[in-house]
């Protein structure tokens, strides 16, 4: 009897081991597939980017002679002339100023607006929240023409403020949508403790809530920064006139039309213009992805 038990047990054990082996084999097979698919996706993504970066190290003649070749010899003058042109740095500075202004404004106004919506009880709270969220349905394209006329009447055509202020306005809905649940989730006890210590609701907001909400603030800040950095339609309407008043996306597009025969120079200009965004992305990748998936769920 006992011997029989033992034998069935060992049998079971070996069959389990076989199972595990089969599963492990299957997993490895999947790993190979994953690596192959992953490499293919990486290649499709990277090859155009590498082409642009390397193309900037060639001459337009090299590009015409062998469009898909490597730099031979390496030419640094194209990158050099972009990096020494005032126009490029002006546009870089404009992009930075617009993005920084937009981000600061959005964080300040958005967090402040989300606070009562998250932690006060008042009539019209629901209505106020719906008004802000409806903003998601208003793409900037719909408002573009009247917005242009409005900015014109305010005398802000050609001014960076004419881009920054509307961008803040259009970024507010998503910011409030992300901030509100975050502020709401902070425990009631913290607020009560703050009250006992004599902090009013205003003091509580600045001294306790804002520092605690730093992760959410970083997320909405990153989203606002990217949206502003990449914006095209609004700057196109507002920043008319001299190229040194443009932001980078406008600048790249204009450079491309203006020097359409000098492909190598366009490639150098384009790759230098995309570098900040890619660098920013490599540093903050986790935060951006989390922000986006959070925004999508929110």
């Amino acid at each position: 009897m006992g011997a029989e038990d033992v034998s069935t047990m060992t049998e079971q054990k070996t069959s389990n081991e076989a199972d595990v082996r089969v599963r492990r084999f299957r997993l490895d097979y999947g790993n190979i597939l994953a690596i192959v698919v992953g490499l293919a996706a990486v290649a499709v993504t990277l090859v155009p980017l590498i082409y642009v970066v390397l193309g900037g190290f060639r001459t337009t003649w090299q590009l015409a002679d062998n469009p898909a070749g490597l730099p031979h010899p390496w030419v640094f003058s194209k990158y050099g002339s972009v990096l020494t042109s005032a126009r490029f740095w002006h546009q870089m500075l404009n992009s930075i100023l617009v993005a920084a202004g937009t981000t600061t404004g959005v964080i300040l106004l958005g967090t402040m607006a989300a606070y009562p919506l998250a932690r006060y009880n008042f009539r019209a709270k629901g209505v106020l929240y719906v008004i802000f969220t409806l903003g998601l349905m208003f793409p900037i394209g719909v408002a573009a023409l009247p917005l242009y006329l409005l900015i014109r009447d305010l005398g802000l055509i050609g001014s960076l403020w004419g881009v920054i202020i509307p961008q803040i306005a259009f970024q507010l809905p998503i910011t409030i949508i992300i901030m509100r649940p975050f502020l709401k989730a902070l425990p009631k006890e913290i607020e009560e403790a703050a009250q006992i210590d004599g902090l009013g609701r205003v003091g509580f907001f600045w001294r306790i809530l804002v520092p605690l909400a730093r992760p959410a603030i970083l997320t909405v800040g990153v989203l606002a920064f990217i949206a502003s950095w990449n914006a095209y339609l609004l700057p196109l309407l507002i920043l008319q006139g001299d190229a040194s008043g443009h932001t980078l996306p406008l600048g790249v597009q204009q450079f491309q039309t203006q020097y359409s025969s000098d492909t190598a120079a366009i490639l150098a200009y384009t790759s230098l213009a995309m570098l900040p965004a890619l660098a920013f992305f490599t540093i903050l990748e986790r935060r951006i992805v989390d922000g986006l998936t959070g925004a999508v769920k929110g």
Partner: protein
Amino acid sequence: MKTKEASGTRSDPVDTSSAGSDSEKKPEKKVRTPEQIRRRDTTRKWGEISLFSGPALIVFLVFVVLPVGLAMYYSFYNWNGIEKLDNFIGLDNYRRAFGDPAFLHALRNNLFVVGMSLLVQFPVALVVALVLNRRFRGRNVVRMVIFAPYILSEVITAVLWLLILQPRGPLDAVMEHLGLGGLKQLWLADLNLVMWTVFFVISWKYIGLAIILFLAGLAGVPQDLQEAATIDGASWWQVQRRINIPLIAPTIRVWMFLSIIGSIQLFDMVWVLTHGGPAGASSTIATYMFQYGFMRSQYGYGSAVAVILFFLSLIAATVYMSLVLRRDNANDTNGG
């Protein structure tokens, strides 16, 4: 007195500070009824609320709601943006749009991108996400690279592909090298081909977002479910079809929503790639609006086109929210 109290509770702080001026303040200070304390607290609360939410609300109303409202208003006029706004023409701008083959073509192009995104981008992104949803060497690098184009601006993406796709450019050279020279095309200048090219470039930029969103959804699927199914002898595909895909359905639906709205509002990419050309073959509603409203200074007509664009997004959003997202929310509350 009674009515004054009632109005005091709801009005803004300015009102009560004037009410609390010398003559009335003194008797109130002696004996404060609970009613008065409550009233003071309420005004204070409203003061705080307007202090916090007011600035954002004003900026939002002036620069988002007002322009959208003005667009609706202008759309009933024939107006060039400079003269007096007095040529009311009713719905003529809307009639003109729906009677213009160029506008209808632009509308069709938007629907083409909506449809192709769902038919092509979606299955490709889903399969890639399912395959990549496991631990393997270099996983983080792969994810990061795939997602990178999403961070590039549409303008830079468009210029990049403009250079690659130009006649006698690198793509043509590679095709010749591979002996496919006969398949070379005027990728961006061929009337029948241009929308496919535009769609390809859009996909190159945005498919990474879909993959990363799906992967984020898959990360939330409980591991033991998949393991249990595998032990029960389910094949890889069965696990995906019966467990993973149904469980990330909410993420998929949200992506679809974003994709549809984005496709309806398409502007930057098309404008830089083709300006809507050749001969309007790749125009979208937004490029059409820009061309007529802004470049030809037909602000009335352009506004009507903008309003149509708005209603298209609104319809898509409302139908979507009511059909799909509500169901997700209901499920969430049941499950949680």
